[in-house]
């Protein structure tokens, strides 16, 4: 069991978000690798059948790859829609950059310097720091364009169909279907870089700050010694003099006075 006796638990992510985070992880993984195969089918004739008639039954063929890609694409599309929709209901699910706040720009500088190890130690006081907020917004935009370009290519199998008539103008907008393919392909590589940095940052945060960053995407909880300075993004704006009786997303870990560790801590203070 994770011991955070000196820290309070804050429920940041809703169950809704956590579910769709992981469906997106799985579908993007499938999409990336099948997409690479579709873009450059590196190992030809792996089915061993020189006759295309048999290949549809083969476990490994362009047809299979495409089917996996389209299925995963549908899962990703709906996960993305549901995840974004969840952001409208739960404050913790929409920790977006707020460019008009001074805190954002201050945080951007502070966190960048911290990652450059200029002040090595710093107080861990962000629900989500400005860099991460910006990065996630970028990723949502990338997802949006990736899904749009993907559905455009998919729908043009039947240009007179419902999807086709909705998405055909996008082909014109992007300047030809070849461009749509390229944009889709280039953004896909962007996801790989995001994943590398994202996984590293999450683990780093977990190790350095002991904030339960990695498990937060399972339990939804992050741990802080003090209230994070951007807590109002979770609990709503607090007007002067107003006291929020029951902060919506915040839970306090009930302290058990019989726990010997708890007593030890109290003696220290």
């Amino acid at each position, binding site marked *: 069991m994770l011991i955070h006796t000196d820290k309070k638990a804050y429920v940041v992510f809703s169950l809704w978000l956590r579910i769709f985070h992981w469906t997106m992880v799985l579908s993007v993984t499938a999409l990336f690798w099948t997409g690479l195969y579709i873009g*450059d089918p590196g190992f030809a004739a*792996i089915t061993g059948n020189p006759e295309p008639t048999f*290949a549809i039954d083969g476990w490994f*063929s362009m047809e299979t790859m495409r089917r996996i890609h389209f299925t995963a694409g549908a899962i990703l599309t709906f996960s993305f829609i549901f995840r974004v929709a969840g952001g409208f209901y739960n404050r913790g699910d929409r920790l977006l950059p707020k460019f008009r706040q001074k805190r954002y720009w201050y945080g951007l500088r502070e966190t960048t310097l911290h990652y450059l190890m200029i002040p090595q130690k710093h107080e861990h006081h962000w629900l989500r720091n400005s860099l991460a907020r910006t990065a996630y917004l970028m990723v949502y935009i990338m997802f949006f364009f990736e899904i749009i370009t993907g559905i455009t290519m998919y729908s043009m199998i039947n*240009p007179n169909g419902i999807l086709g008539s909705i998405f055909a103008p996008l082909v014109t907008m992007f300047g030809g279907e*070849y461009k749509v393919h*390229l944009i889709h392909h280039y953004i896909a590589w962007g996801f790989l870089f995001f994943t590398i940095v994202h996984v*590293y940052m999450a683990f*780093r945060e977990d190790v350095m700050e002991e904030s339960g960053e990695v498990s937060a995407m399972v339990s939804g909880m992050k741990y802080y010694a003090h209230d994070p300075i951007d807590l109002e993004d979770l609990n709503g704006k607090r007007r002067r003099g107003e006291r929020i009786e029951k902060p919506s997303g915040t839970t306090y870990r009930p302290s058990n006075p019989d726990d010997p560790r708890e007593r030890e801590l109290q003696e220290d203070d």
Partner: protein
Amino acid sequence: MKNRVNSLWTLFQERRLSRRTFMKSCVALTAILGLPPTMLNTVVKAAETTELPTVIWLHGHECTGCSESFIRSSSPFTSDVILNMISLEYDDTLAAASGEPLEEHLKKIIAEKNGKYILAVEGGVPLDENGVYCTVGGRTFKESLLEAAKGAAAIIEYGSCASWGGIQAAKPNPTNTVSVSSVVSGKPIIKVPGCPPIPEVMTGVVMHYALFGQIPPLDSQGRPKQFYGNRIHDTCYRRAFFDSGLFVEKFDDDASKSGWCLYKVGCRGPQTYNSCGNLRWWNGLSYPIQSGHGCIGCSEKGFWDNDVFYKRLPDIPLANTITTADTIGTVAAVGATAAVIVHGAATLVRNKYIDIQEEKRLKEQGLWDEKKHNN
């Protein structure tokens, strides 16, 4: 003869051809136009009653390859189209007349048939230096195009140059060539792109207008749906090889001889809308993919800029090397992973170092509390 219209049926009657021959021609015409058999009645009625249209054919910034393609149409024969089915009043490359009389004739037709003729345009419109890069009869093409377009009932853009600008408009587009539709507005415009378009598509489009007096249903890019409704990839006879992952790797390998999919050698079929896969060329004889060469996407907008035609991804030129996005992506991903590992290690080391320094400092000052700090 009262109310005599110059229709296809009167033409057949003049030639003393039977009603049966006329009906057979209508069936063939329905198929050529890409219409379903249920439309036969409409086609017959149109062929009986619609006046055959006057066509003015202008040539702009182009190579006349579209005309070369057009004169090879075999169903219907081009000779039938231009001599019987339409009245082609002006085409400076096909006309027997030349010089002043021909130009005079053009002016006369524009005035006489104002608002009734079809304007077929081959070639792009150069705009730089007031359009001097393309002049016909001493006048810039832009000028003569605008003059002819004013009274046109509809405009057909034949070929990729007229539809998108074509090779002149390829980067860096030195003459600032644009499509006809970027210069002319307010007229129904049919794009028939291709470099060149399929002959039967060219005659089919003009016949559609000739028969029904209206432009065929167009897709979002302005191309007739019956001819540009599908990707070549989705109508390709080699599609089965694509689905099963059987690809030509090089043009001289066994796969190439076996006729496998040309996807990996840069075939643009998956991004190209045209009728090559179903109509094919030269009366259904063949088409590029059938002859063993990938599609270069000649009917797509700006296809000249989508080179190299023998690779799926475009080249990205770097200092001393030429590469593709996949290579850059792989190198960058490995680089990012290495950077992340280095950064993580450096963070841990630096953190440990600062902890040790702090411990030393506290111990020197006598503030070190084993129980409190060393947990």
